[in-house]
């Protein structure tokens, strides 16, 4: 359970990190918080020849509010994001998701960007970013680009990033102008803060009459990437989310997701739990939005 040998370089700038990765011909890996990568190294499931440490690049830390979005730089720790007033006030869904991410000790090292780049199918941060229509900002050896989260997650632990590209930030739009907004994050795991079997992230907005105007539903643990439950959301938009609407929406959800069976839970169990968690999340988001307990 010790990592195999590797070369280590602590980058001082983003271009330098990209240059080092490009020079390693695909054998290099970025290390940020290391909360997933170091176990993979210890178990020899990953065996890069070069680790490029981006923790000391000052330009990769911080949370800013501008142009109707919250931008979180890649090496911002999960603990700092969770403690951020800007996050709590403007993108509370992310704060709710972060409460389920690991433990104090891992949140103190684990980063927002690291979790996104790792793209675990049940990672709460990835789910919240997709639900909020987040955009990934990245930096390659020659150019920068912006990738919508809907195109960023390509498969389990696989993203649109090239081997010499560094994720620099995520931009999360604020639903400020869309009426009464509520959000909820629900998760089922064997132990609290363990990997989720199934999770649901929901953000909804309602008009003063209580009619749902916008709704984002994302489920995790129901496929190789976080999955948008568009059919279920479309069924609920324009309604007051009464009992029959919810029953119909969760039926659509169960039909459209394709979870896998594994030793922890069967596909059928995951499908049923996903329906229940989405129901709870939508109702909690509505309670929050309409201010009725």
């Amino acid at each position, binding site marked *: 359970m*010790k990592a195999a040998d590797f070369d280590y370089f602590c980058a001082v700038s983003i271009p330098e990190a990209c240059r080092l990765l490009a020079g390693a011909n695909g054998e290099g890996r970025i290390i940020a918080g290391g909360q997933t990568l*170091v*176990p993979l190294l*210890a178990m020899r499931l990953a065996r890069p020849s070069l680790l490029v440490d981006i*923790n000391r690049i000052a330009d990769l830390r911080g949370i800013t509010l501008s142009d109707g979005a919250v931008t979180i730089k890649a090496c911002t720790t999960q603990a700092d994001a969770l403690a951020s007033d800007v996050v709590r006030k403007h993108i509370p869904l992310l704060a709710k998701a972060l409460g389920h991410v690991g433990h*104090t000790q*891992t949140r*103190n090292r684990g980063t927002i960007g690291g979790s996104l780049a790792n793209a675990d199918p049940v990672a709460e941060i990835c789910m919240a970013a997709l639900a909020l229509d987040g955009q990934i900002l990245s930096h390659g050896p020659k150019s920068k680009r912006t990738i919508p989260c809907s195109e960023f997650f390509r498969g389990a632990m696989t993203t649109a990033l090239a081997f010499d590209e560094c994720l620099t930030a995520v931009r999360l739009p604020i639903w400020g102008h869309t009426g009464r907004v509520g959000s909820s994050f629900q998760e089922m795991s064997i132990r609290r803060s363990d990997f989720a079997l199934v999770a649901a992230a929901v953000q909804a907005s309602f008009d003063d009459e209580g009619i749902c105007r916008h709704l984002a539903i994302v489920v995790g643990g129901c496929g190789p990437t976080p999955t948008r439950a568009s059919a279920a959301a479309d069924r609920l938009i324009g309604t007051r989310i009464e009992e029959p609407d919810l029953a119909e929406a969760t039926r659509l959800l169960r039909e459209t997701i394709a979870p896998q069976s594994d030793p922890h839970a069967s596909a059928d169990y995951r499908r049923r739990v996903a329906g229940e968690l989405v129901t709870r999340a939508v109702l909690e988001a509505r309670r929050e939005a309409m201010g009725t307990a």
Partner: protein
Amino acid sequence: MSHHHITLTVNGRPHKSQVPARLTLVDFLRDVLLLTGTHTGCEHGVCGACSILLNGKPVRSCLIFAVQADGMDIVTVEGLAPEPETLSILQDCFWETHALQCGFCTPGMLIAVRALLAENHSPSEEQIREGIGGNLCRCTGYKPIVDAILLAAERMRRSNAGASDATAG
């Protein structure tokens, strides 16, 4: 293989060393500095036995390489007591309520609780269970550990109140 020079502070004492890149911080503490109070359990970030304070915050020392801790300030379980041969209030409460049996998880527990009580002087039982959620204990069933933390929080509050009374007086 890459080797790196590092300088860091452990329990108030500065150390200089040369380390291979793949050496984890917990192995550096135990095998190089011979501070064996910090335990290696799972070595992949699950059990919490290797918890230390890194720049004042609790982290798992099996999930950081020693080279990454260059320039940082570290507190291990050996640094919790005010002086040699004594126990901190927290350690004393663990002893008093039988919050350990085999003792393997204890150094990590103490570090996690030190951080918790620094931020929250009167945690609820639920907050305590959340605070030690990243530390596994296979002996106690956690109840005596929670009792120790409640007792320690109360004694620390009283001791702080006494200290400020003394200052005020």
